């Protein structure tokens, strides 16, 4: 626990976004995580991305489950809505909230334990439903909050702090998501905001479910030699496969794409994700090629990062389920609940 809250002072050259807000306006309360936790850096990247896209904090809903990672929504955007669900239950809560109010922007923050152990089923179905949200897995290979047991993302052979090796095979959220039809899949590293911030901005612009697996070292229980999720191991094994720039819709984009972009994807809202570099023979819009590439790299022990796959053509939850355009909170009560006579009438139809 820090001794004080951050002083209110700001840097004299601090810039303001389109709403006139500074980066500091997107902060939350002081983090109570261990000093040096990767999760805090991801928080800082989220703060920056939200500031850059000039989102109004009250139009944001922060969703999470249980875990150190799931505590982090408290540490950004103090003006936003938030829901801290039971362990692993954030995806269904987010799905419900989304269906009830499509006007908000949803950011889910979860952990590898929360999403890949207890909440795995829920995660899969939120992916299948293409719930329009950013879904961040702060992946440290352990249950941080409960003192460092291996999680489902721990690599085979990775050692615990006490020296025991993990014998089970890991669940890789990226491969899992690709295999069940995810429409936006990325991996990044908490220690690399230059990469993470544009990915977050692209994810915010995505039409449906945007999964970002972020390697986020647990300094206290999983940053030792023998760990495959430490700062050092990640830096030694990371391969930045793709490099992206995010170009918001209002900018004149056509000219620059032709010059700088190897390939680019136009997002649902008109913004463009420019891939400045991708490996030869890699197409971030081709699920099969992406999967094959990732499998090949994985077998070499390489941690591939970058925005790995995007498909803007798939309908999202709202389109598939024809949800209300108007948030339920604004629909008059008589319409939402037309009374027992109307119920009676409906039931008659099924007789």
């Amino acid at each position, binding site marked *: *626990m*820090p*001794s*004080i809250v*951050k*002083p*209110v*002072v*700001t*840097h*004299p*050259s*601090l810039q303001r976004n389109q709403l006139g807000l500074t980066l*500091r306006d997107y902060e939350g309360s002081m*983090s109570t995580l*261990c*000093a*040096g*936790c*990767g999760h*805090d*850096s991801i*928080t*800082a990247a989220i703060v920056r991305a939200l500031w850059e896209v000039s989102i109004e904090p009250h139009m944001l809903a922060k969703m999470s489950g249980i875990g150190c990672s799931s505590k982090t929504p408290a540490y950004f955007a103090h003006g936003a809505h938030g829901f801290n669900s039971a362990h692993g239950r954030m995806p269904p809560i987010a799905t419900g909230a989304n269906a009830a109010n499509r006007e908000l922007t949803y950011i889910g923050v979860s952990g590898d334990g929360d999403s890949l152990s207890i909440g795995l089923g829920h995660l899969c179905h939120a992916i299948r439903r293409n719930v329009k949200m950013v879904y961040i897995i702060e992946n440290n290979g352990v249950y941080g909050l409960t003192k460092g047991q291996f999680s489902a993302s721990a690599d085979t052979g990775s050692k615990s702090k006490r020296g025991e090796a993990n014998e089970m095979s890991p669940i890789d959220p990226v491969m899992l998501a690709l295999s069940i039809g995810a429409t936006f899949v990325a991996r990044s590293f*908490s*220690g690399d*905001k230059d990469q993470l911030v544009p990915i977050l901005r692209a994810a915010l612009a995505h039409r449906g479910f945007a999964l970002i697996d972020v390697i986020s*070292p647990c*300094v206290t229980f999983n*940053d030792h030699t023998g760990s495959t999720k430490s*700062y*050092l191991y990640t*830096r030694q094994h990371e391969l930045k496969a793709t490099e992206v720039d995010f170009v918001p819709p209002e900018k004149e984009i056509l000219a620059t794409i032709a010059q700088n972009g190897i390939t680019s994807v136009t997002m649902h809202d008109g913004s463009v994700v420019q891939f400045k570099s991708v490996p030869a023979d890699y197409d971030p819009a081709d699920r099969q090629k992406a999967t094959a590439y990732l499998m090949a790299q994985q077998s070499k022990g390489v941690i591939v990062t970058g925005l790995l796959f995007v498909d803007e053509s798939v309908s999202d939850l709202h389109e598939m389920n024809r949800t209300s355009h108007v948030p339920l909170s604004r629909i008059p009560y008589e319409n939402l609940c037309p009374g027992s006579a109307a119920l009676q009438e409906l039931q008659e139809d099924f007789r």
Partner: protein
Amino acid sequence: MRPTDVQNPNYYHKVVDCQWACPAHTNVPEYIRLIAQGRYTDAYMLNRESNVFPAILGRTCDRPCEPACRRTRVDGKPVAICRLKRVAADLRGEIAHLLPKIPDKKNGKRIACVGAGPASLTIANDLLPLEYEVTIFEKQDKPGGLMRSNIPAFRLPERVLFEEVNMILDLGVDARFNSPVNSMRDLLSQGFDAIFVGSGAPRGKDLEIPGRHDSERIHIGIDWLESIAFGHTDSIGERVLIIGVGNTAMDCCRSSRRLGGKDIKVMARRPRKYFKASPWELEDAEEESVEIVINYAPKNFVIENGQLKGMDFERLEWDADAKRSQTIDTVFLPADDVILAIGQENAFPWIERDLGIEFDKWDMPVVNEVTMEATRPGVFFGGDSAFGPKNIIWAVEHAHQAAISIHNLCQGIPTSDRPPYGMNLVSQKMGISEWSYHNDYNPVSRQKMQHVDLVERFEQLNIEVELGFTAEQTAREVERCLNCDIQTAFTGPRCIECDACIDVCPVQCLTITRDGEEMDLRTRLSAPALNLEQALYVSAPLPQTARIMAKDEDVCVHCGLCAERCPTAAWDMQKFDLLIPYAGKTACMTSCIPA
């Protein structure tokens, strides 16, 4: 960039903006903390070590520290450093037992000082404890120099002045009042081992325009103030024109107000932003209904039948940067008295020019800026006599340096051998997220000094206008200080590049990035500085990625959060104590007590 050398005491010293700006390098943040703890006597003694006259300076210092104060860059107004010094002086306890002990035994070396102003008094203060005999020759009947004769009692009460001046005289100075030195040759022949000239800049500049010498009612500012101080003048006409807008002009106009002046105008040639007077002195004068008139150049005095009627002025129009002016017209302003306050000059009629003491083309002595020595060995200058009129704190600092030189000289060491500065660094870590200093500063605005009521203060000439801070104001003001001496110290090999420090810093001081030249690096900082005066603290390549840690010292608020959030204690908060050498006290040890 080359990794920053933090072993050089100057590096961290510069981070302490106030201390760096203070000519005597007073340890401001430490004395402010001592006041916060109610340790007024300790705060006073810490001040006294470097600036010798805390009570006097706490009321009158030119305070170069304040415009430099970090708080100015962070959020507006500087910490009221000077008036906090007064708090320490006002509330201190008995200090007699803390003053330097003067040995009965003497070392046989005799030092002569000319003038009993702050410069000479500091020489005595520094050398008496080292067994020297110090003789001060003063032409007036009382000590203090311009502090007595020119700084009005409503700013500096006589009681306060006496107390600190006597503190030094009582150490055993051989003070000879009413003893003008009329010949340097004579003085040199009296067998002193060293001579210190602290005779000030005693001559007020004159204004040779028509009518100047045709009336008794045209006064030279510093002479006029002196005649008030010595009780020779106790009234002035109702309409007063002050020519010039420096600090002397401010004392003249406010003194006029107390001696019967009703319509007082301070006449300035140039626009307000080019004034020499400090902004706070202008404010104080305007509070007393003194009118400050800009762009008026004196043309001539108007005298009828031997009586001063007023003055003609040319009204000027200046170009953008006030370099060139055009005359618009000529205006007459009536006056009963005119006071000339257009500056001071040095004058050394008593120093013969064939003694090997060289003078330059402006008739100023040639003085070594480091040793304060004249071209004739054994003769030293300090204070206003050395390089022209400055202020009290410079006089003190000159004298500290001259005292070191004199001590060297008497020990047969070249005066150019200067004892180095040293430093102490002590970790402030008490536990996890616990520091031995208060790392949360108070965001309130600067406390406003209360003044004696506008009617009451004019009833007597010597009513001190400033009331001093109340206990509540003091409590708030001390917590405004950012503790710039509690330094962020970095141990690169420990860093795992987790970014925690970077993310937590409230003012985006920190950046991990690839190395480069300073100008390029500055463009890649988390938040590029507007002020380039403060340095970048750059590490050697970091272990994991070979990038470097760069800290921009500019607006760090010394909150310690970087060190709290660092998992490996690569950042630590360490109290920096500048060890200043004085005569007979070397400070060349450097020590570091890390966490």
